[in-house]
């Protein structure tokens, strides 16, 4: 087990190293001089040169790379061209907001997807099955931004929910829970959007996994043992059916750090996705570079998590 663990972690770290290298050079071969991002027509040539020196862009590429790696090791991701603040600070602020949103959305969509998927498979061929199937396909096929806008329109006009942001602008709060209540109100619609879109996918995966398992010989064995259908579902089908679903969920987790972009944009949620869009528009390369690194690392560690969860759920994977 520990051997397996070390091997997996080793590979993950190696991949991170590769990403660091790629990520650095990716932004150096992009068209345009990063210094030009500091737009101001009044700047003199000398001033621009000063900016280049300030961001370390005057040094040769290998030196820049070594400096980048050294700074990275110290947790320094550089300084934003636009905001003149450390990239790490900006990313961390927004990352928490993103994690709050997709954390809630992921937990809810997994629960909803598993329950619906298992119910559909268990009652296969009934109205429950068809309902879940059609609903999930529709949810999966619906564009996130469109669904978000419909919800936003409906929620803000009918339910009086806020139309965007994380907090009501200019509001002051008497206590922390009032503030959280406000956050909750702002979070409700984006979370629902995210949940429904992803729950559809998880429902379909779970349903087909459980149906596959029901055709296995050991389910016949379980029936022959006289177990009741609920026991068979709980003790023999669920854990086995979780295997393919765990993979999908874990992979999604990595991508949704970035994949929440649509939801964040529609609901003006101050998350990582929003930051990425803004930075692209402003050609704020240091922020983008940091964000890309963060996304890559989250995908790699979501993969690692999937591997480890898999080995916990499936004893056949444990032995190496």
């Amino acid at each position, binding site marked *: 087990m520990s051997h397996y663990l070390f091997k997996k972690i080793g590979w993950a770290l190696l991949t991170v190293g590769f990403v660091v290298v790629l990520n650095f050079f990716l932004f150096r071969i992009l068209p345009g001089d990063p210094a030009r991002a500091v737009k101001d027509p009044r700047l003199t040539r000398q001033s621009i040169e000063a900016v280049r020196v300030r961001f370390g862009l005057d040094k040769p590429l290998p030196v820049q790379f070594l400096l980048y790696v050294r700074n990275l090791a110290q947790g320094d991701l550089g300084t934003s061209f636009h905001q003149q603040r450390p990239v790490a600070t900006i990313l961390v602020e927004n990352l928490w907001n993103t994690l709050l949103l997709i954390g809630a959305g992921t937990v809810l969509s997994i629960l909803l997807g598993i329950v619906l998927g298992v119910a559909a498979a268990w009652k296969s061929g009934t109205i429950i099955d068809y309902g879940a199937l059609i609903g999930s396909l529709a949810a999966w096929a619906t564009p996130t931004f469109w669904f978000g806008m419909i919800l936003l329109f409906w929620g803000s006009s009918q339910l009086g929910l806020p139309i965007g942001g994380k907090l009501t602008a200019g509001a002051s709060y008497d206590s922390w829970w009032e503030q959280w209540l406000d956050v909750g109100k702002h979070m409700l619609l984006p979370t629902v959007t995210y949940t429904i879109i992803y729950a559809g996918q998880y429902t379909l995966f779970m349903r087909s996994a459980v149906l596959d398992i029901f055709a296995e010989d*050991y389910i016949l*064995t379980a*029936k*022959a043992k*006289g177990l009741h259908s609920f026991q068979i579902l709980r003790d023999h089908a669920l854990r086995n059916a979780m295997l393919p679903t765990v993979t999908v969920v874990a992979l999604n987790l990595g991508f949704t750090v970035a994949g929440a972009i649509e939801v964040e944009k529609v609901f003006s949620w101050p998350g990582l996705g929003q930051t990425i869009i803004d930075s692209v528009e402003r050609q704020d390369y240091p922020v983008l570079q940091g964000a890309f690194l963060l996304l890559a690392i989250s995908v790699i560690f979501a993969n690692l998590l999937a591997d480890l969860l898999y080995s916990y759920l499936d*004893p*056949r994977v444990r032995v190496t």
Partner: protein
Amino acid sequence: MLSGLINYPTVLTTLGGDKMNENADDDALILDVRNLSVDYIAHGRPPAHALEKVSFQLRKGEMLGIVGESGCGKTTLMLSLMRLLPAAGRIVNGEINFLGADLLNLNEKAMADVRWKNIAMIFQGAMNALNPVRTVGSQIAEPIARHTMNTLNDLHPIHNANRNGKATQSPNGNGHYAGKNLNPLRTVGSQIAETIKHHEAISDKGILDRRVAELLDLVGISPNRRDQYPHQYSGGMRQRAMIAMALACFPDVIIADEPTTALDVMVQAQILELLATLRQQLGLSVLFVTHDLGVVAEVCDSVMVMYGGVVAEYSDVDTIYNSPQHPYTQELLKAFPDVAHPHSKLTSIPGYPPRLDALPAGCRFAPRCPCAFARCHQAPPPLYHLGKFHEASCYLVEKTKVGIQE
């Protein structure tokens, strides 16, 4: 209960025939299947008659071999006995009398109580029949936990309970196992503990743990391997574990559906020996399904040869081997090597068993039969009685018949 049958098959050599008088209430009779017919229903197509009027009996301690090619209805027969046919399968006719009660009259809940406790099954591919993500021990413990611990002290309590009409009595009514006066708890695999927790009938993990160890020991597996997973076992061990699992609740009948098919010859021999030994020790009644006539000769008391969903020939093992009457039995025997005639040539039967949804009008074997004549193609032959315990469904034996069974 046997008054309806004439020429009821009698003495099986191993069973002490003095007990079994014709027409008498046969104490040793465990399973009495009569005229069992099963159809597979497919949408918009004629039903496939997978079994037609299959009748046989199984007594205590008897091992009945059921042989035939693939697609002859052997597995369908076994699954119908446990009422575990796939959704398309329907039992359209017949009776499955088990200890005097017709299993076909039970509701689903009562049937679930009979499964494994009274009729257990050894499946053919032990790799697939065991759940890959659960330990072998937990899977053996599972039916014990499911079917109460009543069976642990008394070898055949169900046997008696059934006759008193209390087969489904709850173990909670039996204060004996209330648990407080039992051994201190011992550590068991987490899954066993979990299983037990959900079955209020079981209050002592120690008993369950010990029972699993005993069962594994019985089939020659070291009990400390109980917490391993099926993939950590060899093919032979998995099959042994499967046998241990089948024995878990002291069933009245064990159905062994080609238990040695996937194993190499040495392991196959070990498994057969194990089955034979266990049968002697525990007085098991076994339905042994196989392709292999050699194996049948070795371990079985009686043989039922099936072809295309009907009984071709049914008798004790000596009769089948020494004077087979049905051409199909004869052809099958020719396809197996015989040590007494090492130079005789092995032959195969040309063709395939019939499609069950397009059966021939006459005898189902007629299209492949070397002896077929005009009548064989017109109407299916009835099952002729050729002696006290010998039946064959072939017009060729008409003259020697003793009676016709409907």
